[in-house]
């Protein structure tokens, strides 16, 4: 943060200018690389790299899922660097930081003044990590890298524009109150500050020993406020988990972890939606409760989940979608189709076997009822993977006669 060089000397000034130039170059390059990575969604697993860089996401998902994904190594490495060089990531790499800085610059030119605000980023971190220990990382989705990633889903689905809202909000905030996002709100920045705390404390102790008293605005980690934050996080996590209940379970991409935890672990980065070759993943509008806003839900109106495709699970940075092999996917059904015979053409004795013809697993057969004198589609739950091919094929409008429904208790392995 402080330039170690003497600011007044001539050589120091040119050196500072040179470093600023390099830093700008690196930041712009990072932004370009991030954009390229995220645009490569359909072909590769690269998009996972952007949100995976966040130590905040890594810590939150490791605590919540009690599992360690390879991608978390990236976040942990960034975390390690942050311990030694505070906010180094923010100043050199963060693509959202650059955008926010740009908006702050415009805001300042328009005469906007920075607002006075306590550091809420730290609260976000404490709340999230504490609740993560209970399996429900509350505000993990406020991570700037996931918000940046999410904005790339804008053209992916009907509700894709929603995914750009968080980024837009950050940019607007930066314009109205310049620099406030990075310095006061960003949980990734605050988390880095917290990681750097021990070394900083040690340095301060050394300085104090040398008689140079400087008051620190950093509280010790076990201060009253920290305990309060952790307790609040735990309580909120409990409330969030128990507030599920009545709303129907949404249909999640394959490999999704159990439902209440999913809402927390999913960082809403939109990677899965962008990776999906059949465009069946879209961000939720909150139909399944406000806590699920922007989480990925499946819709099978026009297409279905391809048998051999596991792309969405490959690009999930948080572990909300467990990485699957095609075989593993078959043993983790997405849901089970249910037939509404008040809509089904067969009940009218119409000639239709579309759902059975499209089922990739031959899990649908048509059973004759002598009393009803009609055929009924019957689904073999052992063969069915809930891929939605039947629902996509069903010709009835506006309501499909066969609809995949999520399991009451997620059938995770």
């Amino acid at each position, binding site marked *: 943060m402080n330039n170690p060089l003497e600011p007044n000397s001539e050589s120091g000034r040119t050196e500072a200018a040179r470093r600023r130039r390099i830093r700008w170059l690196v930041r712009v390059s990072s932004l370009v690389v991030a954009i390229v990575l995220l645009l490569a969604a359909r072909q590769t697993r690269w998009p996972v790299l952007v949100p995976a860089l966040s130590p905040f996401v890594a810590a939150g998902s490791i605590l919540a899922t009690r599992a360690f994904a390879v991608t978390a190594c990236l976040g942990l490495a960034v975390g390690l660097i942050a311990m030694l060089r505070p906010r180094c990531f923010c100043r050199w790499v963060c693509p959202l930081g650059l955008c926010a800085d740009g908006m702050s610059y415009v805001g300042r030119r328009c005469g906007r003044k920075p607002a006075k605000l306590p550091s809420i980023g730290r609260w976000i971190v404490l709340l999230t990590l504490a609740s993560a220990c209970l399996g429900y990382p509350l505000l993990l989705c406020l991570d700037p890298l996931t918000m940046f990633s999410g904005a790339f889903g804008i053209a992916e689905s009907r509700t894709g524009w929603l995914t750009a809202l968080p980024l837009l909000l950050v940019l607007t905030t930066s314009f109205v109150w310049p620099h406030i996002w990075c310095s006061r709100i960003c949980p990734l920045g605050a988390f880095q500050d917290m990681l750097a705390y021990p070394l900083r404390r040690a340095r301060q102790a050394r300085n104090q020993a040398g008689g140079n008293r400087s008051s620190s605005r950093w509280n010790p980690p076990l201060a009253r406020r920290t305990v309060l934050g952790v307790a609040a996080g735990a309580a909120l996590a409990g409330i969030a988990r128990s507030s599920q209940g009545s709303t129907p379970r949404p249909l999640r991409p394959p490999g999704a972890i159990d439902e209440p935890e999913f809402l927390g672990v999913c960082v809403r980065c939109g990677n899965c939606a962008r990776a999906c070759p059949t465009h069946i993943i879209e961000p939720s509008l909150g139909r399944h409760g406000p806590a699920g806003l922007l989480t990925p839900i499946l819709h099978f109106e026009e297409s279905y989940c391809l048998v051999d495709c596991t792309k969405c699970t490959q690009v999930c940075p948080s572990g909300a979608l467990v990485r699957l092999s095609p075989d593993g996917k078959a043993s983790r059904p997405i849901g089970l189709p249910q037939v509404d015979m008040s809509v089904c053409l*067969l*009940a*009218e*004795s*119409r*000639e239709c*076997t*579309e759902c059975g*013809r*499209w089922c990739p697993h031959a899990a649908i057969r*048509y059973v*004759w009822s*002598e009393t009803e*004198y*009609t*055929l009924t589609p019957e689904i073999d739950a052992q063969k069915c993977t809930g891929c939605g091919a039947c629902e*996509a*094929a069903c*010709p009835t409008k506006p309501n499909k006669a066969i609809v995949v429904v999520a399991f009451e208790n997620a059938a995770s392995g």
Partner: protein
Amino acid sequence: MDKHMNRRECLRALGLSGLTAGLGLTGAPASHAQGVGESSGFQSSVIDAHKVQDMRTAATIVDGKVIQPQRELPILHQTDVLVVGGGSAGVVAAIAARRAGASVTLVERYGHFGGLWTGGLVVLIIGHIVKGGKQVCQGIGEEMMRRLDKLDGAIIDRRPGVSPTVDAEAAKYMMVEMIEEAGVDVFLHCWGVDAIVTENTVRGVVFESKSGRQAILAKIVVDATGDGDLFAAAGAEFEHRSHNVGLVSRIGNLDRVDAEKAGQAPKPRRLGSATPVPGVNWVNLTGPEVDGLDIATLTQMEMNHRKFIWNNVQRTRQTPGYEKVYLVETAPQLGVRITRILNGLNRVRLSDLREATKFPDVVGVGGSSGATHGEWQIPYGALVPTKVDNVLAAGRCISVDMGMADLVRLVPNCFVTGHAAGVAAAVAVRDNCRPRDVDIAKVQKVLRQQEAYLG
């Protein structure tokens, strides 16, 4: 015998074959035997009993077993291409082969053309389009639709991307016209019962009619029986499958439903879909999955379905507002969907539909209801048996896997496979080769000349 005969010549040939059979029976031609116009009112005259009975040998019992003694069969007719079955595939096959230059004879079990399309009242032309609404059923099938367009009250819903519905009687009439114009020799009320085979090669067909058991010799036989009766009799390999057997009916007076009385109450089920006749709907019935070749089962289906349809209409009539609805008719033909499926040189699989497989020997493009599927090509190999020569399959019994059976049996797809089989048979006759050796490029060229769509 001449290649081309009209029906009068055929009847004469029948008399001659009886004489030349050397059984010593003296049968004068039918027209000489009766004294026409000698009294007023309807005429009823004695026909030479020997004429009807000639060459028949009754079955007998030997050691408790019923034995059909060996006997010679009269040859009714000789032809280049013999199409057995006058359904949607057979009629198109006959017209296509005739237009391609062959002499053609069509043998039909019932008294009308169209098979399940008309006699089965499957009056919905579903399967002529693909996703996006493009029409893939062209050629003679589309020509039929255009002829129906010109008839009053013969077809509705002829908009692009929509499945039209025809009037069965109009379609029967239209096919009589087309068959006559094409110059196809026809024998109705003839049930093809056996293949005439020498050295794995089909030489003709034995059929049963009121005239007894007779033979028609042919260079190529097109099996458009739907059930694959002929290729099965000839010894071709096939799969025997069960499928749903139903019975279609038509109900009337739907334009006289009292809407006020009916109110907001739920509509009765199974009111069916509109037909070109105002107020008359056709009502489908899927029926249970059974063996459509088992005569006891077919009998039971016929009786069960008849009872259900009657009672269902009575239930409808008890619904307020629907009192005037009545049963117009049940279909003359039972709705048998799939029975035998040929094991052909090639086989169309569901994966071909999904992956839109292109076949070098494509002879037609199939469609669907249009909602979900793209074009699917039909290879010539799916019409050709693996072992037996000089017989081609057309219609629902061509070589497909179970997943495709529900598409291949649709009326427009039967037009398409019939068209292909008819042209291929004519080309094989012209080139004097086995169907399996036919020049595909020539077949495709003639099909395109006849405005078929090959993708």
